[in-house]
């Protein structure tokens, strides 16, 4: 489902963020991405979500070579990739419902369909009763769950999470990871960047370790 072939990403101001990264990921896999801050975890996720393009090498997602994907097709690629951020990236002046509905609104679904799917997504993360609230009225863990609901509401086959539990205490983190496990069980492919080593050990999923832009360990590699 995802293939990286000798991928380099160089920023003019701080050198190589990724160098010579190669891996393959099958549909339905759940993978953790670890490493120190600045090891290139976010960059790797940003390349998959096509927030950036690689400097060299091939990134192939869903059979699509992202290097040659024309600009106007980028939105349609992003609709198949749910993204979850450490800082949630919610719109402060919109209700929880409207925040979660955004991916469906931009792809032009009917009101009825949007209402149905948003409530289903909010139900999955346990926030159905807060749909009218504004993000500030929610705790950090709840806000992150809204971010997750927004990422899955359009039912993308691929979820990317960048430090989803970075600001949460261990109990809340475990709740979030349980949510991810649920998505994994229904066949969603997940890549979760985190340095919460303890949780990774417990779950025993495939783990990539990045160091200074290089993939130094892949527990699932054949």
């Amino acid at each position, binding site marked *: 489902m995802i293939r990286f072939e000798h991928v380099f990403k160089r920023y003019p101001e701080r050198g190589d963020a990724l160098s010579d990264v190669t891996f393959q990921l099958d549909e339905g896999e759940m993978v953790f991405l670890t490493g120190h801050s600045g090891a290139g975890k976010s960059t790797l996720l940003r390349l998959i*979500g096509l*927030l*950036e393009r690689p400097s060299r090498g091939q990134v192939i997602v869903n059979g699509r070579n992202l290097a040659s994907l024309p600009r*106007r097709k980028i*939105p*349609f*690629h*992003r*609709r*198949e990739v749910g*993204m979850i951020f450490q800082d949630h*990236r919610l*719109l402060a002046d919109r209700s929880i419902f409207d925040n979660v509905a*955004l*991916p469906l609104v*931009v*792809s*032009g679904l*009917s009101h009825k369909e949007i209402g149905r799917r948003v409530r289903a997504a909010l139900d999955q993360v346990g926030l159905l009763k807060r749909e009218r609230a504004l993000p500030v009225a929610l705790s950090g863990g709840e806000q992150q769950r809204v971010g997750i609901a*927004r990422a899955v509401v*359009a*039912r993308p*086959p691929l979820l990317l999470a960048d430090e989803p539990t970075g600001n949460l205490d261990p*109990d809340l983190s*475990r*709740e979030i990871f*349980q949510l991810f*496990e*649920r998505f994994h*069980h*229904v*066949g*969603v492919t997940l890549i979760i960047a985190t340095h919460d080593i303890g949780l990774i050990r417990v779950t025993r999923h495939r783990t990539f370790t990045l160091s200074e832009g290089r993939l130094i360990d892949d527990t699932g590699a054949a």
Partner: protein
Amino acid sequence: MVARAPVRPRQRVRVRRRAAPRLVELPGIWLNHHVQSAVATLGRLMRAPWATGMTVAVIAVALALPAGLFVLTENLRHLVGDWDQAAAVSVFLHAEVSDEAARGIAAELRTWPELQRVEVIGAEDALQEFREQAGFGEALAQLTENPLPAVLALFPSPGYGTLEQMKGIEERLADIPEADFVRVDTRWLMRFQGILDLIQAAVLLLGGLLGLGVLLIVGNTIRLEIQNRSGEIEIMELVGATAAFIRRPFLYAGVWYGLLGGVAAWLLVTIAVFALQGPVSRLASLYRSEFPLSGLGFLALLGMLGGSMLLGLVGSWVAVNRHLREVEPE
């Protein structure tokens, strides 16, 4: 609170891809998008009545100025047009020339190719008309004889109406022995029309300049709006909004600004015409005439609204394309 993951024994549902809308549904979805976007944008503008009002007012003033001048020149043209029906040349005959003789001269003049029509106003007719129109009935009744001469009213043929040709006609008429004096009435009218043409060209120029102003006002307003909502735009791009989707509300905002500004400009012009109608009527009554001012006609109004909407659209288009790139995720 949470035990081990409560994974329901759900089937492994295919979550690969959302069902794409069927082809026949696409036009409906597209139209729905546009209507929603237009209405939502108007709603957003209305929720900030002060900011919107200020922008609309600036646009209205910029549009009302050329539109008002246009209405003014159109009215003046209308005024002149009324007088086009008046005779271009009047030949006053000597007092002793009888109406009979005057008709003879008129018959001769009708053979001139330069003249389309010749009317004879006999001395008696002139006196009668003077009595009725000028209200000098009693004074005139005192007179023992008619002081008015017979007059020939001449209408030049089409193509003989320039100043030089009129001068030629005037000279030939002066040679007629029975003619007392010849007056060319339309000379000032033609000069006046020339001045009107000049003013209208200036109005057009001014309109172009102020139109450019409207473009810049809308462009700048939209630019600020984009900056205010850059966070929202970025998130929309992250969840897969197309450039067209993000652009759309801003373009509608430009069109709405143009439309509202145009309507406000029309209101300003209409109020001005209404306010001026009183003084103009009083002035006209001094000339024993009526002069109903006309406002911006229906076609001119449509043209102005269409033009201002187009200006708003182009202004926001420029701003959107220029600034959306700046807030894209790198």
